[in-house]
């Protein structure tokens, strides 16, 4: 078309884009390290599933319409990318054809047809998106001008390309091709225009124009398309549409093996760490590069806040704003973060003390003037989170929200000592008696009196250790669950024992509230006990214990096969060691505990068990499985007051009541307490019984 103009445009646009990207990447490289380069195969698979497959966009029933809309625009873009290359080629060489996609090959024609349809589809989707934003106005979206600009640009891209082709079509077909334009015309497959009905339609729209006007229109549309595309490319990194570029790498670098990065095992004996305030996340420059990439990638779609138990009950945690506040703070400090990283490289650990001190004081001057927790993120916001992971499980671009919150809590607890004071009795209880209620540790095994349960101290030659947990040991309500579980294990002839008074809290809640010191203490003591008995297999009825034992003990030297009691009961049934009768009478529903479902992916086993004892099966709640709604007790919230907004457990209890059920099954002692309390608040505890799956199984064994 015009090689000089094309070269000029490309040069300018790519130079600006390159500079922007260089700055963005330089900032990421100045952040803390994160190891996300292992298991490349699995990473590519994630990219295929989450990014290319758009799993969380099209996979969610509730969001299917908008999800499909997005996916079709995305897939359309992927297809049209090839077309773009073709057009850039056309800018240099008239009649440019890509290898394999030329007129000699059927592929060229098929691509032509596909591209033709996708342009119409994308255009329709843009119209739908505009309609959604302007008319339907879904609550989760912020209606920004940026979104309209981007939708407008996409529409221009489609229209300009269709009109470019349409003008070309008319010139060739109606005006005898005065400029001798090249077009696909293969004796076998015919003219390219036979394959492109949409383009034919667009051509019909401008068929009234004269040859000269069409020639001008064709050239104008060509350059409009090219310029729009290059502008689009340069606008992307400036706002939330940066995700167009970053979401593929963000998904690629997603944490593997566990839903998000496990809390960092802090070296509490490192004096420099205390001095430099590097325990926990205290300053914006302490984000790691993946967390920085998460912030670049947040598209502000608001799915996270829509499913968040705290946001939906009017608490100040709004992950959309949370990300935005962090991103703004990170970008505002970008220069200082980069300078700081330069200083860090200059520190020679064997160098002179004076020199190191001097560099360190220069580094302190580069700290943000804002307090990360306090100015950027409000205290109430930070402590509202129940760590339920609902946000992460719906995030289309796999952003990890929870680890940042825990890291900030670590900073608040360890460095600033600014954690909620109402946690003190529970933390003290853990320290002194190994349980958050502070009940005498010597009473830990009282629940098992008369049940003929072996203790490891008496006989450690068993197949399984039953890890009871604090609630199952001390809470009268949960003791019944422990007793039910014992009955099941004995009935099925399982050779097991408990630790009794040697068991202590795993430290789960201490870790979630940032008290890494107490967590490590609890973990190390428990690991010493477990390793002392050479424990290999552990069954537990508490998903929080499960999480800690299974995923957080290994780095401290405690590796065991840990399974939840519902997994184990499921296994017993499958192996024919346990038989249930379907005599349960009533309408049964199931509340998925967050740490069992979203953290461990255990959704089917509990349902299998419930279906084995109830002829009517499980009546699912609207918010179930991956999208289950938290009971409100996770993340240490069990040990804090809930004074802002509606109580989360009440919200959930109302949802259960609305289902007209007679029983709600749970698989977690915290859920049991919270749901039952919610029922009491609604005065429904008599009509709707809250029971652990173990209790139901114990009552229906043959």
């Amino acid at each position: 078309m015009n090689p000089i103009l094309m070269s000029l445009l490309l040069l300018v646009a790519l130079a600006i884009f390159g500079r922007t990207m260089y700055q963005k990447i330089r900032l990421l490289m100045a952040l803390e390290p994160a190891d996300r380069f292992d298991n490349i195969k699995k990473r590519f698979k994630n990219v295929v599933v989450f990014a290319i497959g758009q799993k969380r966009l099209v996979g969610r029933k509730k969001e299917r319409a908008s999800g499909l809309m997005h996916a079709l625009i995305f897939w359309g873009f992927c297809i049209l990318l090839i077309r773009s290359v073709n057009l850039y080629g056309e800018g240099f060489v008239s009649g440019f054809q890509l290898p394999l996609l030329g007129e000699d090959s059927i592929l060229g024609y098929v691509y032509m047809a596909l591209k033709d349809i996708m342009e119409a589809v994308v255009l329709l989707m843009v119209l739908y998106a505009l309609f959604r934003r302007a008319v339907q106005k879904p609550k989760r979206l912020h209606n920004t001008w940026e979104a309209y600009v981007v939708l407008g640009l996409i529409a221009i891209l489609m229209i300009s390309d269709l009109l470019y082709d349409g003008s070309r079509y008319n010139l060739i077909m109606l005006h005898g091709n005065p400029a001798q334009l090249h077009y696909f015309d293969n004796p076998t497959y015919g003219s390219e225009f036979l394959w492109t009905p949409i383009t034919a339609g667009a051509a019909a729209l401008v068929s009234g124009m004269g040859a000269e006007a069409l020639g001008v229109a064709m050239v104008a549309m060509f350059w409009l398309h090219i310029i729009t595309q290059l502008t689009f490319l340069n606008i992307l990194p400036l706002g939330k549409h940066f995700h167009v570029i970053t979401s593929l790498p963000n998904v690629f670098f997603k944490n593997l093996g566990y839903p998000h990065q496990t809390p960092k095992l802090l070296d509490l004996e490192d004096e420099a760490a205390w001095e430099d305030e590097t325990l926990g996340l205290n300053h914006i420059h302490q984000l790691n590069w993946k967390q920085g990439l998460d912030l670049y990638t947040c598209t502000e779609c608001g799915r996270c806040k829509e499913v968040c138990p705290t946001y939906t009950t009017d608490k100040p945690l709004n992950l959309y704003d949370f990300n935005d506040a962090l991103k703004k703070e990170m970008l505002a400090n970008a220069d200082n973060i980069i300078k700081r990283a330069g200083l860090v490289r200059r520190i020679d650990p064997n160098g002179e003390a004076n020199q190191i001190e001097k560099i360190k004081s220069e580094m302190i001057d580069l700290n943000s003037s804002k307090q990360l927790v306090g100015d950027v993120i409000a205290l109430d916001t930070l402590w509202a989170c129940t760590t339920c992971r609902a946000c992460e499980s719906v995030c289309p671009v796999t952003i990890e929200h929870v680890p940042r919150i825990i890291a900030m809590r670590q900073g608040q607890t360890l460095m600033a000592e600014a954690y909620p004071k109402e946690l003190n009795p529970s933390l003290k209880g853990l320290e002194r008696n190994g349980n958050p209620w502070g009940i005498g540790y010597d009473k830990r095994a009282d629940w098992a009196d008369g049940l003929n349960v072996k203790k490891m101290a008496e006989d450690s030659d068993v197949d399984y250790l039953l890890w009871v947990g604090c609630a199952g040991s001390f809470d009268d309500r949960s003791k019944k669950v422990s007793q039910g579980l014992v009955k099941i294990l004995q009935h099925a002839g399982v050779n097991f024992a408990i630790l009794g008074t040697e068991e202590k809290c795993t430290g789960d809640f201490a870790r979630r509230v940032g008290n890494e010191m107490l967590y490590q203490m609890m973990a190390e003591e428990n690991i010493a006990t477990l390793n002392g008995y050479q424990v290999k297999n552990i069954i537990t009825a508490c998903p929080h214990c499960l999480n800690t034992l299974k995923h957080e003990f290994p780095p401290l030297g405690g590796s065991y096969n840990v399974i939840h009691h519902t997994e184990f009961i499921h296994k017993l049934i499958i192996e024919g060691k346990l038989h249930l009768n379907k005599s349960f009478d009533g309408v049964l529903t199931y509340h998925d505990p967050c740490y069992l479902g979203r953290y461990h992916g255990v959704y089917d086993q509990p349902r299998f068990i419930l279906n084995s004892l109830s002829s009517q099966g499980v009546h699912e709640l609207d918010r179930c499985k991956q999208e289950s709604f938290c009971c409100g007790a996770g993340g240490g919230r069990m040990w804090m007051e809930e004074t802002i907004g509606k109580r989360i457990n009440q919200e959930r209890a109302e949802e259960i009541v609305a289902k007209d059920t007679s029983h709600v099954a749970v698989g977690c002692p915290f859920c049991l307490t919270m749901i039952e309390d919610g029922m009491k608040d609604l005065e429904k505890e008599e009509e709707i019984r809250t029971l652990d799956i173990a209790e139901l199984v114990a009552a229906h064994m043959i």
Partner: protein
Amino acid sequence: MAKVLVVAEIKKGNIKSSTTELLSKAKSLGAEAATVAIGADVGALAPELANAGSDTQYILEDAGMAFFSAGPYASAVVDAAKQFEADLIWFGFSESGKAMAPRVAAQLDAACATEITDIDLSGKHVEVIRPAITNKVMQRVKVNTPKLVAVVRAGAFEADTGITGSENVVKLAAPEADLKAVIEELVSEASGEIDLADADVVVSVGRGAKDQAGIDLVRELANDLNAGFGSSRAMVDGGFMAHNKQVGQTGKIVAPTLYIAIGISGAIQHLAGMNGSKVILAVNKDPEAPIFNVADYGIVGDLFEVVPLLREEIAKQKRKR
């Protein structure tokens, strides 16, 4: 004969019972007992202190000592201890006692034992009993220094009204005015209500009370007993009670002599806030309620029936007295 100096605790011009208890114990051990009283207006207390069992009364009466301040108060105690040649210096279990004890011990080069529940002077060395590891064990501690400063746990010793001393007043000079800080004014919270943490009897109301009328009924019971009035979380969440009245894991942790739980089922979160109480009385209509597992006395019944009966009986007993 051992010489015991008891540091008098004075609140609003009156000698607190702990001082009498400490003096009774000293005398019962056959020791010579003295007291030291410090304040702006304590001169008139000498006869009362003598009557409680002290043989010598060290009095520091000075306008500058109107408000407690650990530094100068401790200096005065050291002065008295030196004049008296005391072997043992005892403090009551109060914030001021706990603040002075280590200062006095340091100045006298004496051992310091806190929260003792008993003392044995019979052997060559003084021995004290004190709880450790949140009361799970009691330790017997042998004291190797010639002098001992001790803070005595509240209620550890009993007062014996039969014991008296003799009046023998020694005036102490005010310590030098090189105070690092001076207390200008005591700002106390103006509240007519009894503080839950301080109350000897606490009455708490739970979900069983249902509404404001139920709460008012139970509050009357608390008033009858001159008790602190608390609540379980349910009533706070329901908006009936203020959060500072909540007894439990995330509220107030109380350990009164008598705890009366009305209409409280006794979820573990609540028990964690009150199971240190000496005597627990529970009223609940559900005989299976876990509160009965920790209660010393339980009444199974509707609180709307039981509470009026309790109030009636309390009124009767009061009239008898």
